[in-house]
């Protein structure tokens, strides 16, 4: 297989989706093995694609293939694929995480209703995400973008018997939709200026200065609106924590490999345009910083383990945008990859806990599970350290890169904000770990019935834990070379203007990074050691206002609800007035009354006397004749 056939990566899971959706019910075990086989095939094929890419002249590709889709007048629409280092990195991340999630789901979803449907949609989800990352034009990007949104809607609302699940699914869909409208507008604006949907055609046009500055800035901001919605950046972040209503493997998939990283990917893909448009990078940076900081505060006060992880994802996505805001796609993609591995690990680990404790995900009832679940506990510990940014785990290297690049581009103020966010990340991750796995159990009954999950669930955990430890090393030149890449990840993916650069440890930032992680970890340890909540409760009671603000997520939901209520009710009032008085009373009843009235008057013409009719006919003929003569002159 050549990389030109890379579309197969998406086509195989998509095909399996149809097979499972139609025949899944009848297949033994709901056809889950077909799902694993499909994703497994894509996983293997992604290595062939990588091999093909590395065998091109400068090992960077790109390899492209496209077909003519339709021609309208002079406008030719082509659909095709574009394989370059960014695409291949995304392939690796998506297929790896998806494969692990698929295997894990066999254990986690066992005995659930609509088991086959879960696996079917999972395939479509992965397929659309794979299509998204290899699309060479914005139209295909948009189509896959929406497909990803639909799949996340279906999976978040998987337990549709639960009202909260359907609400969460709707919220996710509608919130991202707000951004998607922006994306569509952005795509149309870019198309209008350049006459093409082709991503690289647009980038070249923008770099050549064929698009006006203001126009370019506005259109790329609309595109970025879509990225913000999909990647749950403030103020669109509200849907992601609610998306926890879906089955936990779905959360892992959404948070690590599909859906939320779509926005990061698209921003990275279009980063040259952001660089050309003055100020766009600053917007990206500020959005990322705001998100990282706000969600860090919110996560401090959450007690649902999945919610904490959800807010940490939003925060880490903020880190990725900050990285992209420095103009280095490589660093954003690098953090995306490392984050995907350890966040998938953490989510699957929390899934394992939830499964083992019979759907308990409140920290208030957990604690002391490490002894009961040694594998889950240990892998979760590794994942937590990686998220906290402890060297030499994956999270450390990518965060470090972000700090260095951020300092170069925007200076110390941005670094300090992000450092605060990173410290809080370390804090709440440690809190999460202690309160779930260490100390005394909060609820003895739950604790007694807990047991370690089977190998089908712990296997993926161990594999992901391995990646969470090692994935960060690809930043080094020698490791990259050893894997056959042209060098470390920053030499593999890079923006053309900046060029590849070999990674060197900046000891100052590395040390600062370690200090931040240590402060966060020890602060959390001091506060919660032995799963004691006395100190934190006391702190919360001393500052009730601040605590409530974090706990209630800065009142974003309340604000939106109020705005929606006011806005929707006000608007519906106007609409109902219009409907009642204009459409109904004037339009419908009015025309009926006119007809009735004229009928009432005109009916007296019908006398029933034949001579009257005959007279009317005769007079009519005479009248018409006279009129004809007059007109003829």
């Amino acid at each position, binding site marked *: 297989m050549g990389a030109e056939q890379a579309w197969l990566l998406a086509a195989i899971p998509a095909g399996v989706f149809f097979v499972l959706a139609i025949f899944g019910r009848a297949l033994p075990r709901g056809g889950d093995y077909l799902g694993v086989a499909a994703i497994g095939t894509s996983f293997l094929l992604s290595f062939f694609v990588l091999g093909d890419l590395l065998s091109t002249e400068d090992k960077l590709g790109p390899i492209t293939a496209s077909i003519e889709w339709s021609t309208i007048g002079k406008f030719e629409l082509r659909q095709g694929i574009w394989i370059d280092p960014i695409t291949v990195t995304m392939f690796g991340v998506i297929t790896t995480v998806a494969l692990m999630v698929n295997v894990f789901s066999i254990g986690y979803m066992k005995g659930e209703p609509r088991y086959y449907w879960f696996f079917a949609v999972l395939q479509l989800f992965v397929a659309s995400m794979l299509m998204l990352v290899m699309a060479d034009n914005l139209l295909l990007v948009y189509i896959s973008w929406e497909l990803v949104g639909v799949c996340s809607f279906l999976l978040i609302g998987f337990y549709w018997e639960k009202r909260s699940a359907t609400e969460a699914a709707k919220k996710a869909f509608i919130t991202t939709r707000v951004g998607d409208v922006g994306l569509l507008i952005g795509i149309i604006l870019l198309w209008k200026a350049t006459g093409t949907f082709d991503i690289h055609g647009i980038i070249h046009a923008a770099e050549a200065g064929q698009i006006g500055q203001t126009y370019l800035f506005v259109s790329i901001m609309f595109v970025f609106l879509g990225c913000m919605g999909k990647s749950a950046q403030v103020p669109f972040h509200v849907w992601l924590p609610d998306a926890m209503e879906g089955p936990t493997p779905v959360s892992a998939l959404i948070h690590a490999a599909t859906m939320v990283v779509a926005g990061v990917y698209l921003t990275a893909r279009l980063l040259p345009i952001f660089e050309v448009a003055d100020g766009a990078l600053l917007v990206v940076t500020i959005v990322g910083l705001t998100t990282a900081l706000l969600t860090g505060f919110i996560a401090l006060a959450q007690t649902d383990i999945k919610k904490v992880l959800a807010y940490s994802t939003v925060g880490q996505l903020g880190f990725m945008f900050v990285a992209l805001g420095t103009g280095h796609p490589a660093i954003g993609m690098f953090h995306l990859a490392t984050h995907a591995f350890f966040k998938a690990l953490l989510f699957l680990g929390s899934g394992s806990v939830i499964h083992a404790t019979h759907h308990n995900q409140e920290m208030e009832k957990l604690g002391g599970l490490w002894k009961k679940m040694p594998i889950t506990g240990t892998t979760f510990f590794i994942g937590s350290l990686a998220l906290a940014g402890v060297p030499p785990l994956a999270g450390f290297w990518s965060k470090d890169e972000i700090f260095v690049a951020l300092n170069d581009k925007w200076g110390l103020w941005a670094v300090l904000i992000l450092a605060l966010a990173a410290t809080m990340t370390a804090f709440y991750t440690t809190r999460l770990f202690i309160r779930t796995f260490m100390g005394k159990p909060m609820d003895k009954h739950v604790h007694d019935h807990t047991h370690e999950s089977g190998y089908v669930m712990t296997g993926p955990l161990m594999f992901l834990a391995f990646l969470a430890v090692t994935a960060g090393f690809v930043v080094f030149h020698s490791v990259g070379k050893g894997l056959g890449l042209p060098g470390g990840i920053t030499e593999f993916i890079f923006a053309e203007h900046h060029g590849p650069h070999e990674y060197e440890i900046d000891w100052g930032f590395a040390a600062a990074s370690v200090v931040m992680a240590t402060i966060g970890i020890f602060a959390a340890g001091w506060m919660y050691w032995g799963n004691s909540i006395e100190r934190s409760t006391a702190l919360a009671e001393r500052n009730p206002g601040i605590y409530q603000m974090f706990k209630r997520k800065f009142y974003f939901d309340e604000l939106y609800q109020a705005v929606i209520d006011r806005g929707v009710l006000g608007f519906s009032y106007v609409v109902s007035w219009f409907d009642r008085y204009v459409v109904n009373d004037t339009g419908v009843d009015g025309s009926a009354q006119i007809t009735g009235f004229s009928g009432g008057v005109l009916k007296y013409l019908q006398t*029933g006397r*034949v001579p009257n009719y005959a007279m009317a006919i*005769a007079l009519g003929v005479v009248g018409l004749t006279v009129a004809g003569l007059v007109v003829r002159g």
Partner: protein
Amino acid sequence: MVPLENYLVLSAIIFSLGVYGVLARRNAVLVLMSIELMLNAVSLNFIAFAAYLDPGKITGAIFAVFVITVAAAEVGLALAIVIRLFRNRATSNVDEAAIMKW
């Protein structure tokens, strides 16, 4: 040969008499007869024009035959209605048969 105008004038007179009959008469049978007058005036027109403008052909005559056929059918139907009217209302006065109204 008699000029065409004579036929046309005659035809117009007969047609006008028919119209007058239809409008003035109250007896349904006489109204029907007046309608026949109008139809015959039209037929006369057809024949006259045919004979003067296109003597070799019988186009006008065919129209006249059609008019006569249609008139026969119409009278058959109309007289049947008049008979029913007379049976039911004991009158053939068109002014009195005025129940088909609002």
